[in-house]
């Protein structure tokens, strides 16, 4: 839709230039070199940190209910007790163990995150890619739909829908969140599909008579992997935040434990004025740490796609020591560092090859070191 003020290339953190550049540099003949590059994304320090934290949460979601020291609903005589040996994070107004409540609640948070992420991403791919690919009137209609969902304030809408269902469970919440949270991903995917559609390898695929379905599935989608992943990750963040908020205001069923439910009970029983910090601080910290892990993963993906955001794998101190003054306008690269930007997605280079053009081998160009 051309009436949007956003230049697609600017709105998307991906700059197409780097994709093209890497496509040209792409094919490297050294197999050992290529093998190393496969794990580029994982070797990024930010994404490693994020993935490790996320893995811990996933494990907790699976084994949480088993390793919880108490039943989260068991009432005891230690009312509102501060953290101690038997209750690591203290107890609430009924003497229930807060630590166990959080452990048990992790599962429903992760399930809502996962279901929303998958559902919303599927919708986003379906709508975004078809809008970008079809063009014309279908594109106008689909983009308008996505923009409407983006502009509408989602939370009040979700609240209205959720409150009309009695005691909405995790699944219902996840589906409502997926139905309202797909728009951003669709918009980003559409912009990227539009820029891919005009590329030579897609033209070539069309010229060789490939069906539209095949072009979409095997030529376009693999090139959108990074963006799909990043949109999935941000949808999960949105879902976790929204679910916590909804549980906190008591729209969801209060008998299902989640981090937001713990906060709901804390707020409803004046944890603040009673000074029961152990009741509400840990739950919010968990949300923040999970959100931070997801954002770090997204940073990793962004840097993987847009080399300009990268820091040449050096910390500020290392740079100063080796006399590099980082300046705007240059991406500092270091000679002996493994080249991490050659293959954002291997398929791009395959596409270039399939277009039959001679592939320029510039992989041994001198690497500039900015001094």
């Amino acid at each position, binding site marked *: 839709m051309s*009436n*949007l*003020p*956003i*230049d697609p290339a*600017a*709105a998307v*953190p991906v*700059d197409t230039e780097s994709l093209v550049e890497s496509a040209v540099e792409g094919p490297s003949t050294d197999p050992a070199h290529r093998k190393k590059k496969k794990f580029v994304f994982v070797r990024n320090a930010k994404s490693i940190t994020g993935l490790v934290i996320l893995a811990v949460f996933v494990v907790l979601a699976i084994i949480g209910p088993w390793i919880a020291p108490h039943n989260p609903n068991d009432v005891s005589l230690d009312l509102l007790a501060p953290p101690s040996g038997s209750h690591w994070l203290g107890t609430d107004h009924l003497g229930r163990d807060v630590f166990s409540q959080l452990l048990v609640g992790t599962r429903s948070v992760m399930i809502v995150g996962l279901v929303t992420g998958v559902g919303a991403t599927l919708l986003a791919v379906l709508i975004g890619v078809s809008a970008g690919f079809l063009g014309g009137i279908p594109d106008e209609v689909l983009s*308008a739909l996505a*923009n*409407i969902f*983006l*502009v*509408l*304030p*989602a*939370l*009040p809408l979700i*609240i*209205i*829908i959720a*409150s*009309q269902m009695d005691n909405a469970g995790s699944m219902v919440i996840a589906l409502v969140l997926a139905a309202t949270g797909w728009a951003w991903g669709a918009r980003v995917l559409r912009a990227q599909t539009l820029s891919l559609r005009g590329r030579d390898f897609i033209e070539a695929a069309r010229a060789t008579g490939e069906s539209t379905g095949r072009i979409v599935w095997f030529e376009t989608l693999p090139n959108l992997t990074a963006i799909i992943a990043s949109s999935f990750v941000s949808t999960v*963040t949105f879902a976790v*935040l929204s679910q*916590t*908020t909804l549980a*906190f*205001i*008591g*729209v969801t069923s209060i008998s299902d434990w989640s981090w937001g439910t713990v*906060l709901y009970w804390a*707020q409803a029983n004046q944890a*603040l*004025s009673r*000074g029961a*910090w152990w009741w*509400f*601080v840990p*739950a*919010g910290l968990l*949300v*923040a740490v*999970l*959100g*931070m892990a*997801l*954002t770090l993963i997204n940073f990793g993906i*962004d840097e993987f796609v*847009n080399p*300009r*955001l990268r*820091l*040449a794998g050096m910390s*500020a101190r290392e740079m100063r020591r080796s006399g590099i003054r*980082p300046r*705007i*306008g240059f991406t*500092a690269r270091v000679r002996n560092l493994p080249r991490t930007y050659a293959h954002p997605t291997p398929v791009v280079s395959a596409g270039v090859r399939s277009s039959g053009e001679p592939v320029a081998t510039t992989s041994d160009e001198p690497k500039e070191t900015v001094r």
Partner: protein
Amino acid sequence: MKFLLRRLGFYVLTAWAAVTLNFFIPRVMKGDPVQSLINRFQGQIDQDAVHSLYVLFGLDKKQSLWQQYVDYWKEILHGNLGISFAFFPTPVSQVIKDSLPWTVALVGMATIIAVVLGTLIGTYLGWRRGTWADSILPVMTFFSSVPYFWLGLLFIALLAVTFPVFPASNAYTPGMTPSFSFAFLQSVVQHGFLPALTIVLSSVAGWILGMRNMMVTVGSEDYVTVAQAKGLPERRVMYGYAARNAVLPQVSSFALSLGFVVSGSLVMELVFSYPGIGAQLFAAIGAKDYPLMQGIFLVITVAVLLANILADVVYVFLDPRTRQEG
């Protein structure tokens, strides 16, 4: 001009979509809760009000869907949003009229502060990429993933309960009559400080990160290199060349993320018992006050759309390319 007209068309479409959604939601769900509430207040509600509730919630089964839709629009355009059950017998429009100014002033002010502050900090961080400035990013990530209301809870615990510097709830000292006297305004500022701080701190991170990434991307454009090669002062290149172009996506993302910021602020009001529209929304949830909920959703949507139109006007002002089009 053409650009603005197209945008205006889009907003009309969005407003129509919001009203239509509002029309269909109670019809797809079961209408029983509203029916039972009407029954409960039987005899206390006058006949006109009962009729408007029937129209708004689709209890009028005799009419065709189309006729219901037309009637619905008539009620909305007359500003008739039904009667609030939580604040019976006040009309929904009156409840909203009383609480809206608080929210608009608080959220509006805090959002403007957050955007300006975030953009300035982001400009600097993007320009100084690769120095110590990058170590601020993880902290920013943390703040951008914290739920608004939880940050509010922390502030209350720290600055209102443990160290009672600021009041924990309400918008002004209870018992005072709203006026433009100095004492009252002082009380308003004092009460609004913590809520505003919450909004600013939790939303500023997003603006910083967005602006920083745009600065880094714009920074490697040729015109920035040329400006530097010409020997222009660094400050001039930074603000006049790089930031000026990097700020454009920031304006459009302002429009898009506004809905999110407003949603977060609504919950924050609940935590601070701020008498704004968010607190009313949650009172409405507690009382299963559907007319009020739907009225609030409509009003919030209209407010967000108006802010979007404003952002578009600013965009046209900043970017000459959009003016050339028409």
